Each structure stands twice: as structure tokens, then as C-alpha cells.
């Protein structure tokens, strides 16, 4: 039952530029290798010389406006040839394509291969007529993906509405063990209790304003409460608009390293997520839960899902500072309730651990494959390719 698989993963975005899909592929590869599988990653790269040896580059990407932002993708004849070479020489048991609708090597790989293919949808796309017709054209290529995965309910809905058919929901993973242990910053959380906020300071949808508006009320019950803030943005700009009684309670960390982020979780009693929208998944909530920090979050649909409707963390009414203050104050008062919440949350975070998520993805691989079947180059419907194969005498 536990045969080892040779997996080829296609990532359409530049490997050496940070991004969610890239991180997902990197972590998935690491987890697959840990389980004993063999993995090769195909991705564009700015600089071919500084790549880890498991990445095969398809060349320098170009900036393309896509889905409301700029994506760095590969297009063109040369990268197409590299994709074909990779498929032909890879001898893969399964090919796993990420973001198959992005106009880049993912679509090319789907077009050029056949056999056991799995595709993962990451982002959600607004419905529009132009895209609708593109999906129709892409249908013949998309139907090559035998197993389809969506990382969030929103991404799944995009897929089901636009393309039709079904997809299984397998969320992003969290490396739980990496969060369970860390040394808090000196003097934190302290007897006066501490809160933690993580996110862009000047992005209204991250909801820092709501937390700051709630802070005076929290301070009425907890006069020594402090707040740790991490994330990019101009902190002076924020401080100068605040009364000194609120400003003095804030400590800004700026943009933090992965390691300091874990320390920050351990330096606080409560992680507050006052986001007002735009979240399709709550990966940071899971990181807080894995760290053993109690979570208070707005009642967005994505957050309710992660917190199991309040069982693994408290919710407050989205956009309401008074409610946030009440929920936080009550939770700071009650050490026993907080400890219980942290216990439930830690167990729940393990449901999203990379180890478990990876086992589910491997189950998907096994569910699309006949024993012994391999991914091969698809030459059908392409006259040139067919003639080439004929003359080679193996058709």
C-alpha cells in the first residue's frame, strides 16, 4: 500500500520571488520527501544559478498582469520546450499542477502531458463573461486533471462555478511542530497581559483601527495591558494620531522573520485578528493556535471555519470595537477559560498539520492512478508531434 511515488510538481510563478503558491509548493515538497517520495519541481526562475537542486528552471519569467495583480510567469517557445523535456525525461507517476488557469507553464504542462494528473486551485477569481469564455476554451485542457484540489472554500466555489465539476477541499498546511516551542521576548507577556497583532499596519482590511479603538476599553479593566504589533507599514504615522495613553501601550516589531514571529506568538496571551474582509483562509490563526496562544478573531466566514465556530477561539462581531473589547477583557480575566481554549485550539491546529495534509494529497495521487501508470507526453491532435512519432516508428 505504501509504494513510493515519483512526483513532478509544476509551479507557474517565479521560484525566487516570494509568494503563497511558491511557499505551498516548497512545503509540500519537503513533506513529500519526508514521507519517502521523490519530487522534482518545475518553475520559472529569475536566476538559474541559485536554485535548490530539486527545481528545474524554465527560464526567466516576464511580468504579466493577472487576476488583479502582477504575476511573474513564463511564456514562449523556449519554456514550452523545457516543459516537454521535463515531462518526457521525468518518468513521473503523478504530475501535480498548481494554479492551472494562470497563463504560464502550468497550462502548458497540462496541455503537453497525459496520464495521472492532479491540479490545485489556490486563488478565487471574480466571475466575468470574458473569463467565462476563456474557461470554455480551457475546458479540453482542464479535463485532463483527473483529481482536482482547492485550498479554500472560495477557491473551490470559483472552480465549481466557472469550470463545472467537482473539487476536493484540502487546505494549506501548517508546520505545527515549528510553532510549539519558542522563547518569549524579554519581559513579555508580563503580569499586565499582552495582545498580539500581525499584518500590514496601513491596510484597512487587516483591521488595526478596530483593535486600537477597542484598546481604551480593554485598558479600563486591565490597566497594564500591552500590544505587540508585527507587520510592514509606517508606525509613526499611526502613533501620532493616537492619544498618549493608547500609544504608550504599543510595541512595534516591524517586518519580522519567521523565527521572531513564533517568539511573538509566545510573547502574548491573546492573538487578535480584527480583519474586516478579504481573507479566504486563516493560516495565521492556525499558527497562533499551534503556538498555544488564545485567538480572538472577527466572525468572517473563513475564520469561523478555522475556529470551528468559536470552539477553538472566540469571535467578535466584525467591525465592532466595543464587542472586541468585551470579548478580549473577559478572556483576559479568565485564565482557566483561556487555558481550555488553547488546549482545544492546539488539537484543532493538528488537523491542518503539513504531515496530515500531505497524507491527504498522497491519497489524491493514489486515487487518480492505475497501478504502474506513468505521466507521458501527449502528442495526440498535434500533427507535427504525431508525424514525429510515426517516423520514430513507435506508434
Amino acid at each position, binding site marked *: 500500500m505504501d509504494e513510493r511515488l515519483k512526483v513532478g510538481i509544476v509551479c507557474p510563478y517565479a521560484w525566487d520571488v516570494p509568494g503563497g503558491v511558491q511557499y505551498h509548493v516548497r512545503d509540500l515538497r519537503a513533506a513529500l520527501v519526508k514521507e519517502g517520495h521523490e519530487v522534482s519541481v518545475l518553475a520559472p526562475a529569475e536566476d538559474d544559478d541559485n536554485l535548490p537542486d530539486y527545481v528545474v528552471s524554465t527560464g526567466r519569467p516576464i511580468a504579466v498582469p493577472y487576476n488583479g495583480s502582477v504575476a511573474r510567469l513564463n511564456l514562449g517557445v523556449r519554456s514550452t520546450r523545457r516543459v516537454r523535456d521535463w515531462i518526457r525525461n521525468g518518468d513521473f507517476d503523478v504530475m501535480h499542477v498548481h494554479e492551472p488557469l494562470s497563463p504560464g507553464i502550468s497550462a502548458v504542462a497540462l496541455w503537453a502531458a*497525459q496520464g495521472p494528473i492532479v491540479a490545485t486551485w489556490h486563488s478565487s477569481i471574480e466571475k466575468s463573461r470574458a473569463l467565462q469564455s476563456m474557461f470554455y476554451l480551457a475546458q479540453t485542457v482542464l*479535463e485532463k486533471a*483527473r483529481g482536482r484540489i482547492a485550498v479554500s472554500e472560495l477557491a473551490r466555489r470559483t472552480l465549481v462555478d466557472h469550470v463545472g465539476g*467537482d473539487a476536493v477541499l484540502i487546505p494549506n498546511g501548517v508546520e505545527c511542530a515549528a510553532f510549539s516551542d519558542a522563547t518569549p521576548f524579554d519581559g513579555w507577556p508580563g503580569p499586565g497581559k499582552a495582545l498580539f497583532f500581525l499584518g500590514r499596519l496601513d491596510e484597512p482590511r487587516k483591521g488595526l483601527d478596530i483593535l486600537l479603538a477597542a484598546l481604551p476599553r480593554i485598558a479600563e479593566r486591565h490597566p497594564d495591558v500591552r500590544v505587540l504589533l508585527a507587520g510592514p507599514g509606517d508606525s509613526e504615522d499611526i502613533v501620532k494620531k493616537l492619544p498618549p495613553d493608547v500609544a504608550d501601550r504599543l510595541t512595534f516589531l516591524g517586518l519580522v522573520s519567521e523565527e521572531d514571529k513564533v517568539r511573538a506568538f509566545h510573547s502574548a496571551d491573546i492573538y487578535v485578528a480584527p480583519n474586516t474582509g478579504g481573507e479566504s483562509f486563516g493560516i495565521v490563526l492556525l499558527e497562533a493556535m499551534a503556538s498555544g496562544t488564545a485567538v480572538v478573531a472577527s466572525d468572517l466566514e473563513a475564520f469561523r*471555519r478555522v475556529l470551528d465556530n468559536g470552539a477553538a477561539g472566540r469571535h467578535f462581531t466584525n467591525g465592532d470595537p466595543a464587542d472586541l473589547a468585551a470579548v478580549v477583557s473577559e478572556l483576559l480575566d479568565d485564565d482557566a477559560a483561556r487555558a481550555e481554549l488553547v488546549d482545544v485550539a492546539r488539537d484543532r491546529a493538528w488537523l491542518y498539520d503539513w504531515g496530515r495534509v500531505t497524507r491527504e494529497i498522497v491519497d489524491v495521487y493514489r486515487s*487518480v492512478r492505475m497501478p504502474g501508470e506513468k505521466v507521458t507526453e501527449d502528442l*495526440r*491532435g498535434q500533427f507535427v508531434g504525431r508525424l514525429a512519432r510515426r517516423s520514430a516508428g513507435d506508434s
Partner: protein
Amino acid sequence: MSWWAWVLIALVLLVAWYLSQTAGRLDRLHRRVDAGHVALDRALLERSSVAGELAAARMPDPATAAVIGDAVHTARRADPVNQLQRSLAESNLTQVLVAAFDEPEAVSDCSELPGGEELMVDLESTTRRVELSRRFLNDAVRACRDVRYQWVVRVFRLAGHTPWPEPFEMDDTPPPGFGSR
């Protein structure tokens, strides 16, 4: 040659290209359906064999083990060609497993018995695989039918003698004790 002959040749080539394209697409979809059937068949067999081991080891307790053993026996004896009979027998096994592992405590208790941990991991994986492969199979059947409904495919008999693709219906609820997101 006059212009209309060129147009005719172009038209014939275009139709030929389209037919060959569609035949290739259909062939791929049939392979996808076949792979779906094979994967589901394998997942069901593996699930019943894990459940059988559980019953043989008298886990989680002798009474439940007897019920599981009976359900496994029925599922194993079901005629693989008779879809309805098989679907009922496998659904029955599903319901027995759901009842046996209805909460996380039932799973963790069983994991603590000797050899139980490994069996629980296998049971979780195989029940999930049954659910996944059935969904992928039915999705493949839907995609394949969409193409076979096209008039071009029917008129030119592009599907040949390949049987009409059928989905597989059964209850594949995973046992709630394994936790859900």
C-alpha cells in the same frame, strides 16, 4: 485549381482535424473513467481488508468487531458486476464504521490497543481514499458524458463500442471520529 476547390480542401482538412482532436479527447476521457474505476475498486478492497483485520483482532471491542466482520464479509461476497448489490454492501460497511468510530475517543481508545495505531491510520487513509476516488470517478463520468452527448460524437460514432460511462453511487461518509475541518 479554382478557388472553391481550395476552400473545399481547407474545409475537409478542418473537419478532419476537429474529428481527430475530439476522438483523442474522448479516448483520454475514457481512460480517465477507467482509471477512476480501478482506483475506486482498489480503495474499496483495501478498506474492507483493513476493516477485516480490525475484526480479526477483535477491535475496538468483541461485539463491534463481530458487526464489522459481518459487514466486511457481505462486502467481499458482493458481485462486482452487479453495481447495485455492491453499492448496498459497501454502504453498509460505511455505516457500520461510522457507528463504530463516531467520536474521537473511539479512535484514540482503539489506537492505544496493541497494533491499533497502525490500523487506525490505515482505516482513516482507506476511508478517505474511497471518498476521493468515488468523487473523482463520478467527475470523470460527468466530463465524459458531456462530450459523448455532442452530436458530432454521436453522428461519427467517435466513441466506438466503448460502453456508456456509469457513475458509482454509495454512502462514503468518513467516520466522524477522525475529525473534520
